[in-house]
């Protein structure tokens, strides 16, 4: 039986057509789920974004007014800036830190399993528990970090105020996010172990130094994973919420008022559901554009070997 035998193809096609009720029946949960929990809410969200909708009275169409108001809303721009700052620092730094850990572990050191487990462990800790923990670690007076800095000889006046300081609150949350860089590390390590050894041998024969091997062999070979973690990290960072909600409430002086936090406040404390939906759509479009831009850029840098 070969694929190009016309009779077989015909029989297979008929069988295919007759089997669709079964296939659809099995996929029914997904179909219903997509309609009810994705398509319907996405459509409604777009509609609400064009409405004035204080929760206790029905939505009323007001056209683009919500989007126009967004452009004039200083807290919208502030939250955009805060989120941009956080994402632009936390994502690349987290990737570099994860990659460095993976490169270290890839040197065939003893105790690899132990180190890998330990570095990965922070990503397992429930976010709420990490937030409560880091709230104390970052305490300017008795927190672990400032006590440590003083122990290392930094004058008390120079230690940062972390979450109590307008300047240091975002770096504090970025620092906390770096504790979780082990998630990326696991992926990078797996990718590093898949790089064919011959490439390094060939490079070494050509007289490539360690730095060149990293730049011309290792990084291109693992670039698809870097791209993936970059995009996922970006999407995650743009949606950062719990840290600010639990640890700072958006303060001090709204320096950690992130986009998602403002959106949540607008929807569930001010109950301006239309305005909040407009914010959600701006975020959605931004994520789409950012992802497309990264993909486009990556065409030049990412190397897929099959």
């Amino acid at each position, binding site marked *: 039986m070969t694929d190009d035998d016309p009779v077989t193809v015909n029989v297979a096609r008929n069988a295919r057509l007759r089997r669709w009720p*079964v296939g659809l029946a099995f996929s029914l949960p997904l179909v219903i789920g997509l309609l009810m929990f994705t398509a319907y809410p996405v459509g409604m969200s777009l509609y*609400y974004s064009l409405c004035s909708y204080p929760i206790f009275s029905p939505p009323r169409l007001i056209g683009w007014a919500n989007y126009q108001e967004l452009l004039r809303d200083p807290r919208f721009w502030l939250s955009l800036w805060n989120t941009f700052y956080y994402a632009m620092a936390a994502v690349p730094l987290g990737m570099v830190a994860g990659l460095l850990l993976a490169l270290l572990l890839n040197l065939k*050191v003893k105790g690899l399993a132990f180190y890998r487990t330990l570095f990965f462990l922070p990503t397992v800790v429930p976010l*709420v528990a990490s937030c409560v*923990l880091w709230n104390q670690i970052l305490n300017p007076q008795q927190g*672990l970090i400032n006590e440590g800095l003083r122990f290392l000889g930094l004058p008390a006046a120079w230690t940062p105020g972390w979450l109590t300081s307008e300047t240091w609150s975002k770096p504090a949350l970025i620092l906390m996010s770096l504790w979780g860089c082990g998630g990326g590390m*696991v992926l990078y390590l*797996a990718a590093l172990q898949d790089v064919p050894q011959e490439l390094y041998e060939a490079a070494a024969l050509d007289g490539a130094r360690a730095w060149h091997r990293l730049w011309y062999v290792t990084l291109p070979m693992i670039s698809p994973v870097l791209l993936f973690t970059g995009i996922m990290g970006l999407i995650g960072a743009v949606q950062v919420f719990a840290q600010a909600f639990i640890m700072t409430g958006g303060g001090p002086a709204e320096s950690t008022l992130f986009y998602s936090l403002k959106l*949540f406040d607008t929807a569930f404390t001010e109950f301006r559901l239309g305005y909040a939906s407009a914010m959600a759509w701006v975020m959605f479009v931004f994520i789409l554009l950012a992802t497309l831009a990264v993909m486009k850029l990556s065409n030049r840098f990412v190397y897929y070997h099959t």
Partner: protein
Amino acid sequence: MQRDKRRFLHVIVAQAVLMALSLVFALPFIWMLSTSLKVPDHIQSDSVDPIPKAWFLPRHGRLVRVRPLGIKQGRLVVQWRGGAEKGKTVPIAPRRLLSRPYLDWRNYVEGFQEFPFLRYLGNTLVICALSVLGTVLSCSLVAYGLACVPWKGRETLFWVMLSTMMIPGQVTMIPLFILFRHLGWINTILPLVVPAFFGNAFFIFLLRQFYRGIPVSLLEAARVDGAGDLRIWARIVAPLSKPALLMVALFTFINSWNDFLNPLIYLLNDRKYTLSIGLTMFQGQYNTEWGPLMAMSLVMALPIIVLFFLTQKTFIQGVKLSGVKG
């Protein structure tokens, strides 16, 4: 020879760096544990000392634990916490106090009194269990439909499903809230568990990959023997994909356990809270008392950490698979 020497040196340096880094990564854990076991006044006086200590006073040749109460006329008033005179107070010269290692479980006792852990745990476990059941069941059925039954349109459905993964939760959050409010589901666990019964794009993707690896001849043989699709799914495909299903169950469990935003939106009163919401509220009340806070954070994190150690292989495998998709 020269190369071997250099390589050896590299490994030594890497090992040293790794040891230093592991200390950095472990410190928050050590600190959480030690703070949770410290006497309250020791947290304030020496928060970096990793070994929990308490104050002791020599009496009749042995050390008896005391609790400092305050300064009175230049003398430190302390209360005996052990020995024959337990509970009585005595003024002493402050320099006579000795600091010695001591594990104090008071923070846990206090935490469990103020933080209805068992109720929150029960609520969380119900949500986790139903989510796991719903996700495993629906995802494995759908994955069978997409991988093992040839039909027109399955590719389209698959790509539609994948493209929905790009939609951030914030977009669907508000209409879903309105929908569930109309259904009268606010302050119930239904909004947190019902969607689980309608599949999850990422897990369906994982399972579909796995199911496609099952030899078609096996399914055909069963079909020739007269088995229907439901039977083939239940008797052949599901048992063969046990590791993949376990992985889905594991990640669903952890996601529900850790979920913060959804319980925050839908659960309105204290009796319904999950651990993550409960802990957040607890932090609001206990802002300055680190001992109970650290104790309760640890109690919330511990089950997941233990689960991670028990399922480490599956866990890491799952994390790697999540990256393959890229």
